[in-house]
């Protein structure tokens, strides 16, 4: 059989994808740091310029460089995503573990909490929580962080439940292993990958929801270069033909959300022994 010499196995490919993502994300942070104040400085001589060599994403109605603003917006999005995804994932881990191991009543309560958390449309819930926090950046972060746990909680609960009834765990406890030993050697290796993949796959949701919330006008002040705010501002200039104000920041947002999606799915494939060598 002929094999393509350039075909890499999944492990190598995934490692390359992970490396590429890390480079991309650090590039965003470094670029945002290098640009310093540049995205905020108005330069009326350079107003409303379409994309070109000196300003790849064009400039806005105050002559601010859209590329610098987009990079800063992405940095804010990544920060919100990081905070929100970690909070939600940790809540999900604790609730999922509690539901699966602490008896029937806790299980019913946690399952019920998940149902209630998913009962209203997610965006309406986000608006409600951000209103309860009085808006502002704090409101956006709390809303996104406190509303993404139900799905992952269910996954972790189901995983642990299934493990606890599996034969090898029962056998292990018959052989006299303590619950702590079983948790450490049998449960953890299964739950940690689920947790990590769940954490990564929460990122795109968190980033998009945060952008949606700020686009609607909940949250940050209009001076913050956040992607949702950039897009909401560009709405006023759409009819005048300044298309670049909306296109480039939106594409940048989609790209970063997709990157996390690809990253999460690759890590999942890598951590699952069944698909590792495909």
């Amino acid at each position, binding site marked *: 059989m002929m094999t393509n010499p350039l075909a890499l196995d999944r492990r190598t490919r995934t490692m390359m994808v992970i490396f590429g993502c890390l480079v991309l994300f650090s590039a965003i942070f470094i670029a945002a740091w290098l640009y310093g104040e540049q995205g905020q400085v108005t330069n009326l001589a350079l107003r409303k310029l379409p994309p070109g060599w000196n300003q790849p994403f064009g400039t806005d109605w105050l002559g601010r460089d859209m590329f610098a603003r987009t990079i800063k917006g992405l940095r804010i999005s990544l920060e919100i995503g990081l905070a929100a995804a970690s909070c939600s994932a940790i809540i999900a881990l604790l609730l999922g573990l509690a539901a699966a191991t602490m008896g029937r009543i806790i299980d019913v309560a946690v399952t019920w909490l998940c149902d209630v958390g998913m009962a*209203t449309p997610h965006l*309406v819930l986000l608006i409600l929580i951000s*209103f309860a926090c*009085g808006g502002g950046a704090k409101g956006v972060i709390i809303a996104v962080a406190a509303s993404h746990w139900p799905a992952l909680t269910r996954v972790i609960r189901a995983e642990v439940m299934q493990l606890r009834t599996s034969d090898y765990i029962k056998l292990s406890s018959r052989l006299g292993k303590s619950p702590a030993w079983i948790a450490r050697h049998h449960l953890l290796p299964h739950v940690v990958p689920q947790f990590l993949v769940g954490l990564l796959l929460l990122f795109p949701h968190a980033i998009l929801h945060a*952008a949606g919330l700020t686009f609607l006008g*909940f949250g940050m002040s209009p001076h913050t270069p956040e992607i949702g705010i950039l897009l909401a501002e560009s709405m006023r200039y759409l009819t005048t033909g300044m298309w670049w104000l909306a296109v480039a920041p*939106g594409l940048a947002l989609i790209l970063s959300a997709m990157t996390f999606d690809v990253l999460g799915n690759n890590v999942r494939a890598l951590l699952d022994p069944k698909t590792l060598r495909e």
Partner: protein
Amino acid sequence: MITQFLLVKIFRLILLIAAVATLSFLLVSSSPVNPVDAYVGTAMLRISQDQREIIAKRWGLDKPPVERFGRWAGQMATGNLGVSTIFNEPVLSVIGKRFVTSFWLMALAWSLSGALGFGLGLIAGAREDTLLDRGIRLYAYTMASTPTFWVGMILLMVFSVSLGWTPVCCAWPPGLSAEQATLWQRLHHLLLPAVTLSLIGIAQITLHTREKTIEALRSDYAVFARAQGESIIGIVFVRALRNVALPAVTLQFASLGELFGGAVLAEQVFAYPGLGRTTVEAGIRGDIPLLLGIVLFSTIFVFTGNFMADLIYHLVDPRLRKTAGAIS
């Protein structure tokens, strides 16, 4: 059996609404936003302290939160959700009017995305790993990471601003009322927001249908049909279709929550005066009765979707129909 199924569902709905109502009341009453300030708005300087106290008293804000909750819940149980502060109209009638406008938008988008997504999923599954499949998958994955409002803005720029084919805003021509606009005008204004919602909504149903189609094509009955010389297209459309359609319909009904969220964003872009835009206004301008009303209404909306999905499953799937006692 069906009455028992309904009774269980109604009991669950009541329990759910009670929980959602309590939690959302807790949330809004912990908000630092002062409802009187939010109501008075820019007229803040012209309103004296006494007048503010009169407003607060009229709304019952001088009473402790527990008593307020008791009164609100009591009124809610009789079907009175209070009066919206920004529209000065009963909350139920505001929601009713706005929902009718949103309903046509959501219905059109929902059917479009369901039909297109299902078709694309079948094609992608039947032609697994071809260029066509890769194209469809790339589209679906991209749309899953694309914000609804951005798609709306791009469509708005291309079709309304550059080409001028569709109107820039609203649900009917400015200057007319909803009743004066013709059906054609309404459809014309509806088209772009509905397409925006469907373009995004297609993603999930396509990927799901594709998975199910591939699964069906690997099943014993499909392999057997292949061995008898049937074409893949024949197997997909004659044999697999029914098995794939049921989960797709279920998924589509269960996605009403995302449809509602998408409508909020799309209506904001197109200035479409539906329930979604009202939600944003209620949130930004601190109209607490309306916001709570919309939270409860959207909960019922999502619940109805899930309920329909369950019901269809039980009515259509022969495996569940035979063991009707297993309905839960």
